[in-house]
């Protein structure tokens, strides 16, 4: 297979192998400097910067209604207006911020919890079996269905989307961490630490964990993209972010009713989704090459 395959294509079962070669200091720097990593990072940084700085340059807020609904792009409203006369550009930027906040909260939380649950594998056989079964079920259920379940339990909104994202991505981190962990256990340095009489917890936290962190980082980029997709799917269905709060998904949902009148309404948030997803994929790919395959 050519190396262009994005890591997103890999099956979630492919337990990540942590590198056996020593970690070089500049490995993340090298990933960032590779063309793919640089472009990917630039795409994500661009979206973040524009969504944060943009609102200060606009004369309309995302909730401000105007007299002209579904107006075409013009000098007043750069991207036109939506069905109640709100500035589309302002709403796309606000929606992007909502997506960034949701994913930046949910995915790190999922990564930490997932990794810890994955590490349970060495602690107890029974606990490992229980955790793995739970992961099986969570991975088997489609993200949207899982999200709908969450939306039943607590009303749909930012929290329900965050929980759904965390539930979907947590087992993926867990599997990845567990796979990497089991790969490390047979290595000499672990045996050496045991011979030195270090307690298990110290070996785990001080020696093994730093060696599997790379695997989690690489996965992290992919899961950020995944999380954007989950928010989009849930909001498009109507059980994610609720009106009047904009998000990329909810704007695509609302905009898709006006594809004939103002196509930018749906296409602009789609463009942002693609920028973010492709950006994250490229970063993860670069990390994968520079960090894991040294």
């Amino acid at each position, binding site marked *: *297979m050519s190396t262009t*395959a*994005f890591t997103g294509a890999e099956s979630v079962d492919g337990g990540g192998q942590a590198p056996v070669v020593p970690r070089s200091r500049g490995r993340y720097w090298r990933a960032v400097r590779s063309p793919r990593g640089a472009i990917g990072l630039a795409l994500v940084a661009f979206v973040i910067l524009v969504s944060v700085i943009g609102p200060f340059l606009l004369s309309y807020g995302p909730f401000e209604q105007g007299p002209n609904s579904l107006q075409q792009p013009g000098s007043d409203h750069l991207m036109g207006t939506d069905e109640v006369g709100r500035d589309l550009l302002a709403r796309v930027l606000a929606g992007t911020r909502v997506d960034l906040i949701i994913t930046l909260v949910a995915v790190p939380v999922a990564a930490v919890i997932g990794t810890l649950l994955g590490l349970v594998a060495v602690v107890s056989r029974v606990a490992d079996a229980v955790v793995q079964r739970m992961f099986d079920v969570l991975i088997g*259920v*489609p993200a949207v269905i899982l999200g709908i*379940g969450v939306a039943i339990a607590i009303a749909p909104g930012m929290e329900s989307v965050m929980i759904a994202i965390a539930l979907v991505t947590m087992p993926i981190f867990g599997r990845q961490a567990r796979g990497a962990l089991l790969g490390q256990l047979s290595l000499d340095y672990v045996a050496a630490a045991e011979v030195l009489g270090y307690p298990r917890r110290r070996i785990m936290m001080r020696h093994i964990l730093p060696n599997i962190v790379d695997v989690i980082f690489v996965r992290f980029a992919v899961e950020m993209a995944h999380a954007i997709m989950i928010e989009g799917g849930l909001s498009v*269905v109507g059980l994610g972010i609720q009106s009047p709060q904009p998000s990329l998904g909810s704007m695509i949902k609302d905009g898709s009713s006006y594809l004939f009148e103002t196509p930018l309404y749906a*296409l602009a948030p789609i463009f942002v989704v*693609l920028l973010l997803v492709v950006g994250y994929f490229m970063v993860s790919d670069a990390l994968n090459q520079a960090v894991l395959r040294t």
Partner: protein
Amino acid sequence: MTRYVLRQVMSGLAVLLATSVIVFGLLHLAPGDPASILAGPDAAEDTIAAIRTEMGLDQHPVAQYLDWLRQLLTGDLGMSYTLGQPVSELIGQRIGSTLQLTVTATFLMILLGTAMGVGLATSKSRVIKQGIDSMATLALAMPPFVSGVLLIFLFAVVWGVLPSGGEASLLGEPADAVSRLILPSIAMALPTAPVLGRLLATEMRRTRDQEFVLTAQAKGASTRWITWRHVVPNSLGPAIVELGIRVGHLLGGVVVAEAIFARAGLGSLLVEAVQTRDYRLAQVLLLLGIAVMIAAQLATEVCMARLDPRIRLGVSS
């Protein structure tokens, strides 16, 4: 073999039972009291109480769960709170639409995935390989809601060749029905096909180095014959496993596709049920979805066991 299948079915049923507890539990976590929602905003206290008794909501949750389970097992799916119709009747009305879409999407997924995989593995031209690979990458970056809206924009808005959504009876107006199936099923198949394609391509490269391929070459079989008769069938394993997972995941895709393409299937019924807090209906639909998903995974496991006796005998190679 029978024993293996039986064991798999049992474990599938165990998972289903566990999820039924979770799905039932969601109702009790849910905000709002179903009885007062059903009674309406200004119902009297005793009306609500009467409805609660009628629905059995005043009983202990465990008793309610067992009651619900017993009803489900005897084929009584209950009544929808808000639509006032039996759940089984509602499912009957909507299932056709969802079935058409899922079957078409699965078929397309297999077709596109195989074409992509064989193309990637056998093409000698660098340009073609790179082309397929870039397309696969692009498709992977597009979840169904993105590909769906883009397809509507291109085919319905810009070129005006296909309808933007809705559905028609497959028996009544077959041409119309098919034309309305094309875009949503492509939208669903597109993000998953490249995954299958890449798995197939990787495995095909591995298979090609095996001795039986050399034997076939020595016998003078044509390259095409060897590819389709020997290499592809022996390389399907990982792709089939993935297919089982992906068919389950199509159920998520179908909910999204029905929302975007305005189709009245089970996915949109589920969304309506949750939005109107018709939890009885939502529970049954969720459980049905999970049952289908488990069945799909079961089917793949049985397929794999048939293809490779080592699996069913529990021997590691």
